[in-house]
């Protein structure tokens, strides 16, 4: 049964995996930290839906890009920490390159359109 998606979420879908991987380059983190980091570093523009975060984490783990372990958090609560694997690092590199290519391309298209509109 397909769910209704909002435009932001759709946008996120392709990039959430990449952002999660990116967040974990700085060090292991649990779900809450990952969400917070993404929100903060996007200037609170991107709100990470928990409904997509956890399935995404499990999916990445299934593909072998993340590994996980249970550990106490800073305030002594048990949480599941995620770590980037070597395969995950390679994947992040691929994703980042692809992302850069696409944004550059979209930027070129949109830049020309803007110029055309101004003249």
């Amino acid at each position, binding site marked *: 049964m397909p769910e209704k998606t909002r435009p932001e979420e759709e946008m996120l879908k392709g990039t959430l995996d990449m952002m999660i991987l990116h967040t974990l380059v700085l060090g292991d983190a*649990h*779900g*809450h*930290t990952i*969400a*917070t980091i993404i929100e903060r570093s996007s200037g609170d523009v991107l709100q990470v*839906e*928990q*409904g997509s975060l*956890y*399935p995404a984490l*499990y*999916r990445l783990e*299934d593909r072998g890009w993340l590994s996980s372990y249970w550990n106490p*958090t800073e*305030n002594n*609560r*048990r*949480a*599941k920490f995620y770590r980037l694997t070597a395969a995950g690092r390679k994947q992040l590199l691929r994703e980042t390159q692809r992302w850069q290519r696409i944004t550059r391309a979209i930027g070129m298209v949109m830049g020309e359109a803007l110029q055309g509109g101004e003249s």
Partner: protein
Amino acid sequence: MNWLRFFRRRRRDAELREEMSAHLANEIEDNIARGYSPEEARRAALRKFGNPQQVRERLWRESTISWLDSLWRNGKHSVRALRRSPGFAVVSIVVIALGIGVNAALFAVVRGVLLKPLPFADPQRLVRLYEDTFNHRFAYNSSAAGIFAEWEKQRHGFSGMAISRHSAYNLSGTGGQLPENLEASLFSASMLPVLGVEPALGRNFSSAEDSPSANGTVILSWNLWKRRFGGERSIVGQTILLDGRGYTVIGVMPSWFAYPSSTVQLWTAASHERTTKEMQALDNHNFQAVGRLKPGVSLTEAVNELSLITLRIHNAHADNPFISSEAHGRPLLESLVGNVRTPLLILLCATGCVLLIACLNIANLLVARSLGRRRELAIRTALGGSRAELLGHHLAESLLLSLAGGALGFFLAYEMVQWFVTLRHDVPRADAIHMDGVVLAFSAGLVLLTALSAGLVSAFSSRDDQVLSALQESSRSYSGGQARAKLRRVLLTVEVGLTVVLLIGAGLLLKSYARLRSSDLGCITRDVLTMQVSLPAARYDFPAAVHFYQELLTRVRNYPGVQAAGLVTTLPGDDYGGDSGFTIQGRPPLAEGNGQLALTRWVDPEYFAALGIPFQSGHAFDHDQFLVPGSEVIISAAFQRQYFPREDPVGKTILTMGERPYRIAGVVGDTLYSIGEQARPMMYFPIYTLNSKNPKDFVSGSALVVRSGQDVTRLALPVQKIFQSLDRDLAVSDILTMDQVIGAQTLDASFNATLLLIFALVSLVLAAVGLFGVVSYLAAQRTTEIGVRIALGAQRNQVLTLILRDGLRPALIGLVVGLIISAGVTRLISSMLYQTGPLDPEIFGVVALTLLAVAVAACVVPAWRAAQLNPVTALRTE
């Protein structure tokens, strides 16, 4: 698709829940740090997180393999449903087990015997080669060694050729072991290379050893080596005594090697064993030839070449009519199993019918069940159960039944194959029959096929567009189920039709078998004991053999309980046993290319009296014809009919056994050489005479027949002791009563008839059960209607007829259809019939009556029950 993920869903779910609650706790703490009150912090966190249940469900769904999940769910549901009606489940499983069991077993047999390639190198290029008989009556005659030698010299189409000949030896006992008579085969040195087989130990005969001047050499079978020589490798190079002569063991064959048959226990070199004269004879058809086709040469081309060679030899010896003029060939596998091909395929067809009937019955039962559960199914449909889900449910149930039945059936098949192999070791290649992976795969296929066919039939019988009517109908009863019952009637008709075909096939085979068993062999068969003995040439010369025979007969005849005893080279009903050409003195020479043949037997003077074979004219042999080439012959009635139709043969002279004159002393009644065959002309010579002027050419092997007035098997041991007292090293073999000899000859017919009868009876029972079920169901459906009828004054017997007629119609249609089909297909088994026409009216009649009786019996109980209905209760039920 991740299987691991699927099976660890539950653990992952628990982990996720814990992870999410940790997440929430963190969020709440963050919110408190931002200055929210604990209550507000919690609410904000929950609001932000959304519905954790949804996340769980999403992950659960993502890690679920949907078809597997629904299969599992359907499976659980079906197990529960079947547990509620164990009777139905047990009946169905047993029916399927029977159907799949017999099919898997017979498939294993057919595969082992007919389908598996021979275990030789490149077996599809191996061919058996034959000569035609001089009168072109039988295309697959054995070859003469002289003709074969010419073939081999002039061949182009073959990369190799070899011959073998059947033989037997007395293996002397060593170290306290008893002497033993062993079946053997003489091989030319080229045989093993042509087959592409190497001995497991030692080596093949060299061509120098395959000659008359060489020392004796022998290759042992694996079994003989293990059994008799303890499996010791040092046997190679040692000498063993065969017929009292020394033979050096040069090799042991691998355990699987069974050519020409699995009863052969040792092999010797052909040219060493037989006289040069026999190895050069052009008309002595005693050898089996095989050839290996060169790549790219077809069988027809190669055989045509041999035919030309044969014809040339034939034309060069126009005076000898027994030199054949044509060669034939067929694949080696076909020559080995050709005789059992038709019966096996017929049996396979029969088991196919049994499975089909079993399937129909299961479908029938499932339809009945789904009709009984219409309300449940209708409610499920109304609640949104999709068509595919309902179909899946039907299939799951039939798959479950088929799996259970298939597993049980495979076990049954295993037992049946064991039984078959022990009972029928006369079937060629019986040792190749195994329950292996292929048979397992075949059974699995049958399981699927059964599940699909039974499940689909029942699924399509319940149409989901009738939800409303089903719901309504079950609230108020009227006979709306009629239309649905139509499908069951059609299934039943097919079932009855197939059953009729099986019954008729079984009936025809049974009648043939009865005819075979009751066919008059031409001699006394009750209380007659027979045993074979062969005198080793190394220790017996002609006078010694005569002395042995006479001493033996005297002692046996004097033993208390023995009424008569005699000797013969080949027992009645124990097959061909050799023949000879002859001419009648005083008749004009036969036209070129024509010959006269009669089967040959050597007997002692009392043989005819011992077996009660009557003299029609003339007299028995004189007792005093010893130690000289014989001069008298006794002929059979068939001989007289064919060659002396209008004159008295006694006193006439025939020239035979090397153109020597024999005076006809008497004419005796016919004995059949093979049960189920016409009597052929036969000549009897006295056993106490030389066959020719050669003092070595006498009868060294024969069968002793002993007749008694009581249970003759009690004489077996004393008679054997008499043999032992005469010659300690002599092996006596094949100790059988005459009835056992006949039984062995008719084993095939009895086996086929019995099996087919069992299959037919199983089908009959299945059809009867099906009929009973349908009529009961129809009657139950019409309870109200019958109640009304009776209340309005219908007589009980009118109701009875009504229901009976309803149930009998499919049976009658099935019967007629079955009879028509039978009339068309019984011709296929006519080669297995004996004195029984494929359209035997008696069998057709009996089968039709039996089926009618069974059908009436199956219908009458539910019909009678319906007629006994109390209208008041019937109308009050709803």
